[in-house]
């Protein structure tokens, strides 16, 4: 997300990321980050919670106006209060998870983000 964001910012647009992992987004050089403690797949809020979604979007935009320096991060004050047990992962493990089970020696490449040279 941060890599795409910095390219769009560099092209002359003012950008902000809503990010659940602000440290990771920041390390990619994101100019503005609104950190949000929401589950993956529900960045703005629960399905059907229009008021909650609006509040998060509004907070991100307002935070943006107050940011004066590259790399600004604001932690949005929203609390995820639902105790409902949610299935947050994908229906089947993603290909890289299955690959690493079969090729455990490739794990350092994954952790260090040094993939093998592309064949495609």
């Amino acid at each position, binding site marked *: *997300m941060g890599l*795409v964001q910095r390219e769009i910012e*560099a092209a002359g647009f003012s950008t902000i990321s*809503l990010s659940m992992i602000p440290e990771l987004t920041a390390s990619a050089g994101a100019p503005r980050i609104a950190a949000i403690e929401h589950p993956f797949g529900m960045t703005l*809020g629960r399905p059907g919670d229009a008021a909650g979604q609006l509040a998060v*979007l*509004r907070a991100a935009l307002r935070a943006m106006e107050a940011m004066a320096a590259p790399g600004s991060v604001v*932690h949005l004050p929203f609390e995820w209060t639902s105790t409902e047990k949610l299935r*947050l992962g994908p229906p089947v493990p*993603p290909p890289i998870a299955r690959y690493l089970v079969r090729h455990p020696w490739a794990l350092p490449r994954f952790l260090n983000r040094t993939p093998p040279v592309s064949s495609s």
Partner: protein
Amino acid sequence: MQPTKKVDSYRFVDGIAKRVLERWAALPGETHVPWTPVASPLSECTVALVSSAGIALQSDQPFDPEIERRDPWFADPSYRVLPRTARTGDVQVGHLHINPAFAQQDLNSVLPVERLDELAELGEIGAAAPSHYSYIGYTLRPERLLRESVPRMVQQLREEHVDVVVLVQV
């Protein structure tokens, strides 16, 4: 000022994913950060949305999951345009690392198209852009995404006179 919240990035991730994400965040990062000041009050700005959830209109070509199945180090590097009028029933989710159920119940959970329109109606932003965008955020090889897809997104953002872009991580 209210007490400051510190977002816990790992509240909703399991032990292995936490280890990976912490490691990635600790790797040497980009040192140069670009900056375009917000030039006008938001009430005069045209705002576009970008989602990394891999959302495509059902009437459009879907993201190709076979690219990632063949080579699990990256995903389909293309992107899709989503008109401002796109609604939950019009889209499908191509990101293989998330539970797509929430976005399929309500697109606004990951791409708040209707909420952005509401902010425009309230006068809090100038306008919602005619088009929003989505790509698949998982990649360890971002080169083609950055070289092929982002410049075309940028071109359309320019053509539609967008001022502000809100990117939504998934």
